[in-house]
């Protein structure tokens, strides 16, 4: 079946067997209840074993899962009255980033996020969620609008990275990303960023300067893709699994490194297995942080954001003997 990851196979096969026995019990009138109960217990233990100890690489696979909820899924589930707004007013409208205004718990907010497709056709239209400069400039335009009208900004991050293309370079991919970093640092409204799937380097960061950075449990966030790191380090992209471990890219790693403020739990098997549960969890975490930030003045919000990023990094200082 599509969307089945290799490490999930034993569990999914067991689940299918349970289904089959259920059907037998119903259709053929043979009672397999005892077996079913036994197998269900085994399935539960197996699920715990598989999902309870996910390796970084397995999380990467879950984060990139074709059925992984997209930004629009989250927007539609979390907000009401969403109105999508288009274009950067300079060049075009980038479908790899969606943005607009909506209400969250009756409060107007600006929402922005990378948008991946659900199938190949949509992915091509969305450029697999890899923005061009006009995408970042659309995001910036709407964030400036949010700042003007005092609306909190909520960003959903899910991209393999900014698009590495000729036209993107010519139109200033670097400048577009850099400007977003600087401007997001300056806005006097609450900004909450959530890594929902792939956090692909600078292309992710360009929507990622928030007072709070949240991460779904199986999302990852990295300076370089595991494949890219493996190619650089060992001249072998198939070593991605090893690179995923070395790079420390999971939500737990980022929490421990002081980058992520809170990890949003996912249902067993990943966000796509029970989207409603994922949304419920995310909603309460978002509400909590937004409520806390709403008490801060515009100046305090800017200072809060500055201190958050100023504190990130590890270094030593040698003391000189006179």
């Amino acid at each position, binding site marked *: 079946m599509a969307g089945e990851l290799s490490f999930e196979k034993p569990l999914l096969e067991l689940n299918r067997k349970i289904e089959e026995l259920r059907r037998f019990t119903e259709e053929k009138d043979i009672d397999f209840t005892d077996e079913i109960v036994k197998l269900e217990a085994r399935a539960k233990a197996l699920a715990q074993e598989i999902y309870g100890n996910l390796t970084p690489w397995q999380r990467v696979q879950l984060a990139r899962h074709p059925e992984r909820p997209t930004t629009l899924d989250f927007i539609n589930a979390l907000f009401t009255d969403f109105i999508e707004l288009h274009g950067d007013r300079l060049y075009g409208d980038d479908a790899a980033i969606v943005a607009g205004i909506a209400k969250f718990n009756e409060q107007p907010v600006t929402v922005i996020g990378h948008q991946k497709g659900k199938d190949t056709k949509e992915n091509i239209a969305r450029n697999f969620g890899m923005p061009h400069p006009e995408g970042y400039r659309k995001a910036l335009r709407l964030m400036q609008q949010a700042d003007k009208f005092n609306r909190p900004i909520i960003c959903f991050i899910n991209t393999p990275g900014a698009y590495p*293309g*000729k036209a993107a370079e010519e139109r200033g991919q670097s400048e577009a990303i850099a400007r977003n*970093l600087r401007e997001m640092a300056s806005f006097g409204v609450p900004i909450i960023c959530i890594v929902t799937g792939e956090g692909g380097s600078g292309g992710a*960061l360009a929507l990622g300067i928030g007072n709070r950075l949240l991460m779904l449990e199986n999302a990852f966030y990295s300076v370089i893709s595991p494949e890219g790191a493996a190619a650089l380090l060992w001249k072998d992209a198939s070593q991605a699994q090893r690179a995923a471990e070395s790079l420390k890219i999971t939500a737990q790693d980022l929490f421990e490194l002081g*980058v992520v403020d809170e990890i949003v739990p996912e249902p067993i098997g990943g966000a796509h297995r029970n989207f409603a549960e994922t949304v419920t969890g995310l909603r309460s975490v978002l509400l909590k942080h937004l409520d806390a930030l709403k008490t801060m003045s515009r100046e305090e919000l800017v200072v809060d954001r500055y201190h958050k990023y100023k504190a990130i990094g*590890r270094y030593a200082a040698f003391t000189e003997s006179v």
Partner: protein
Amino acid sequence: MLKDIFYKKRRYATVRTGQAQDRGEEKAEVKEVPEGLMIKCDKCGTIAYAKELEKNLKVCQGCGYHFPMTAFERIAMLLDEGYFFEYDSELLSTDPLNFPDYLSKLKKDMETSGLSEAVVTGEGTIKGYPVVIAVMDPRFRMGSMGSVVGEKITRAAEQALEKRYPFILFSASGGARMQEGVLSLMQMAKTSAALARLNEAGVLYISVMTNPTTGGVSASFASLGDYNFAEPGALIGFAGRRIIEQTIRQELPEDFQTAEFLLKKGQLDKVIPRQELRHTLAKILDMHTVRRGS
């Protein structure tokens, strides 16, 4: 935390300009013929006396090729002699991710470059105008940005803000440093946030991109100048050439991602030959009416 302890400590070690040679920083990527007396240009093959090349600010007299410069060579070239006070030279990288071979690579680069990290920051004067300056050195981990580079640049920007001195930053970097993972990525955020403060306060920030300025450095402080300048021939871009060629499945033009190419595409204010740099910067400093003396 360490940074709290050292934040307030300003280190004023006077580094005599022209000291670069004493530090054994001659090597760079220059091909040396017997005992470094003669140097052959990488681009056109013109052979010049090392001393002559030195005098010509390491620009080939045959073709104008700009040889790589070490951080201290550049500081010596730009600042008034005798006026440079280095900041934060005591900051050293650690190995926060336990990344394979990182510490040994750091050690090796320290030995070969004589530097403690990939950026040198401090303050000095250019034709009498006080400035805070940061200069990256591509010999140290390809000038990549990890926690220390991000922190030093951020602190330099904070000094510029506090003193209201213009901030001039010379980039030379392959981008964010992989071995510090997401912490390196976040230095893009940290440095940009520091520049946001300068921007709000109306403090001048000049970015000069030298060869190479790519990846996360290009996509953060290097692109945020009130003036974005570059040296001739410098490679500047976000994504690597090979990656782009693989993605779009076509060959890129020869001059793609050079300073001249970006100038044509409207991405730079000006390409400034090295010989004119000090003079042009002084003119700009003058127009921003910075008070004289320090």
